[in-house]
């Protein structure tokens, strides 16, 4: 596992002065990389931390009140709204964002490929959150029916697609992942 501090990992973010072991709140893992978290960073929302500190802008801010699901990430295997989560709540935990779903060789996860093939993408702003909610669903239920898919995705708003092809995509992904 790679070890990195947020400051040297995120291009364009200069190291903050005064970083020291004493100022650390703990650590978490983001997309397989262990991150040391400073005290002041622990008070940020996970969404702010991902976007502003780590530069992982795939996770989106659609409402900031936990209603739209655009900011969904997976924490220890469970879907979570990063806008309503403090970094301090996920110290010691394993966070996966949309950037962490693909293979290291850039190969798409079957859920990602299925979203493309089923025509489930329009403006794309809800797509990362949708994909992460689908990922959390398929971790716990590899064979959901369409009603279960709709229920699992109901924390994620989409204004473009009417959900039909998103449900198609998750059904297709589940079939592909079962082999």
């Amino acid at each position: 596992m790679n070890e990195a501090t947020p400051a040297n990992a995120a291009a364009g973010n200069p190291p903050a002065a005064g970083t020291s072991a004493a100022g650390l709140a703990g650590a978490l893992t983001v997309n397989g990389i262990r991150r040391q978290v400073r005290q002041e960073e622990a008070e940020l929302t996970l969404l702010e931390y991902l976007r502003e500190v780590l530069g992982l802008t795939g996770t989106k801010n659609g409402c900031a009140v936990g209603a739209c699901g655009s900011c969904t990430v997976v924490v220890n295997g469970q879907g979570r709204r990063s806008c309503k989560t403090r970094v301090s709540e996920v110290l010691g935990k394993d966070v996966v964002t949309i950037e962490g779903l693909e293979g290291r060789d850039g190969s798409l996860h079957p859920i990602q490929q299925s979203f493309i093939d089923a025509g489930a993408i329009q403006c794309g702003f809800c797509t990362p959150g949708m994909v992460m909610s689908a990922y959390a669903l398929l971790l716990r239920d590899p064979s959901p029916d369409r009603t279960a898919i709709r229920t699992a995705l109901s924390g994620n708003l989409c204004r473009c697609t009417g959900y039909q092809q998103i449900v198609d995509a998750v059904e297709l992904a589940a079939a592909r992942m079962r082999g």
Partner: protein
Amino acid sequence: MANETKSAFRNDARAKVRGRALYADDIRLPDMAHAVPVYTRFVRARNLRVDVSAARAAPGVLGVFTAADVPGQVRFGQIVRDYPMLAEGTIQCEGEVIALAVAETRRQALAAAALVVEHAEELPPVTDPEEALAPGAPVVRWGGDDNLANRGRVRRGDAAAALASCDLVVDETFSTQAVEHAYMEPESAVAIPRPDGILEIRGSMQHPFSTRRFVAALLGVSLAEVEVVGTTAGGGFGGKDDTAAIVCARAALAARKLGRPVKLTYDREWSFRESYKRHPYRLRYRVGFSKDGTARAAEIDMLCDSGAYTSVTPWVNWRSTAQCCGPYYVDAVRMDIRAAATNNVFTGAMRGFGAPQVNFAVEQVMDIAAERLGLSPLEIRRKNMVKQDGLTITGQRLDTHVVSLGQVMDTVVRDSGYEAKLARCSRGKAEDGRLYGIGLAISYRGSSLGAEGLDYCSAVVNVQADGSVLLDAAIHENGQGAESVQMLILARELGLPVERIRRQWSSTSRIPDGGTTVATRGTIMGGGAVAQAARELKRLMAETLADELGDPKAVRFEGGRVGAPGGPSLSWEEAVSRMYDRRIYPYAFGTFRAPPVSWDEHTGQGDAYFTYVYSCQAAEVSVDPATGRVQLLALWAAHDVGRAINPPMTLGQAYGGMVQAAGMALMEDLAPEGGRLGNRNLDRYKIPRARDIPEMRCTLVENPDPNSPTGAKGIGEPAIELLAPAIANAVYNATGIRCRDLPIRLDPEALK
């Protein structure tokens, strides 16, 4: 055809599904400052004074700008220049921005914004359009001497006399609510002063050229000094024109003042508060019928709320006027529409654009009349619908394309099993504790701008020396798949795999203004321009290479080869190489100008649109009599799109439009009170979620349209304009209760 693809094609899908698509708020630049808006605390006020001294002294603050800092025009607009980009003198609605706070960080800018002090003399707001137009009402229309923001009409025959002689007159009043676009991405803009003296704008918007006009106006610079560069847009639905452009203009003002890149990203509450909504309408329909169901006369009055500024109200009203009788021919029509200026958040373009409101009324009137005359909803529609080579209520003869209204209705009737299901509707008598109903609606929709605007678009095809192709077009990607459609059209025209084509990021400095990406004109106008550019390129290549390939008129571009059938041919790459050898660029600029349309404002008669899309949708509902809650069981659609270029994306437009219409019908409520929105985030403003929506089926009907260079028409707005009345008709067939107001609310007491 070789390049026909039945799986979804999108040039942006891979980036979007990886989280790598770059939306405006994802842009990070060295030395970038952050701006935030400061809102008024009033709804209506005068003698505005803004004190920014404390805010300017706050930590990290780089500047706090007000209308006094604007070098160009403070007020701008698409039709009337009445929208203050920063409040000046008066406050007309709660969405007005009195200052812009700019700091090193967003947090610092937000802290500074809280220190801006606003002084003004508060006035009672005018929020009811009827009261706004009553004699003696306070004048709230900026620069006006009354509150009448617009009016329109149709005069055809003697409607009053015809109505008096009808066997049945249906007299009904309906109302529709203001609706939020709720694009998932709130407005965001980044303005970048460039070393070449040009101010570059990247932002979330649906029309870069409109944005450029707003930016240039606010800064008082020429259009050539501003370059708006395409940026991934997280949805628009008509909603990212004026307000999104003004967000860009404010970022531009700060960047120009500071000489630094400035980002201005809206949070959801700001977006709700400031952005325009769908126009609320009140509609009174008096429609007269003969015993056999023929609609003979209509007297129609509409009143709509334009809110604090004009925006595109006259154009929205015009579509309501031209399509005031829905897809039916009526011999005698008197129709009047008025728009009132009020102190509500302003109203403007939203997907459907004046048609969903009208259809909500017309399609219920038809069901009401059918029941009273003892006819079926299908019989009365078949009798009155516009027909091949027949007339519209504006006197236009529909003889240039296939009029397929009967075909789309028959398709939905067949797909849904409408007639059998209609027979078993509950009509107020619950079975197993539920009330069941099915309802249907039909529509026709004039394609593109029609007689409301100058309608043309452009595209550039630039073939590189290795045979790869760069494509640009003046229709913007809002997320609907416009670029992918353009690429597929070009691939088909040139006989190349779509992989050989790249759609370059658009820029206002590289292609002429092709008009707004609105009015379902992306495929017909933008795609049409691409087809014209491709045909111009093919003509140039065939003529240039005539000594090798023979008669230019016989040359085909198919399967990666160029040549006449049975004659000599070259591979595409060889043909391109020969062009460069002869120092003739394989480059073409194409334009598509819409066929002529006409309109007489005094009579409301003319050839309103150059072609129409025909649609039918149906809904099945289940109503819980204990709660009044309406559950959707299934949704059905058929649309004659001319030709579906990218069928999975065409279907995606249909599904998405139906669900937006379902939200309008059943859920969406801004809860306005005294000019303030009660619901201003997605937790309380409910839009449909996956569990609210049933399975949908849409059948694409394809009658290629001779008026369109590609045969394709469009789908974006037809999809949203008729499901609300279909749902209302289904609710009636379930409950026996006619819902005349949106959103539909059923009182459980009435269901007992």
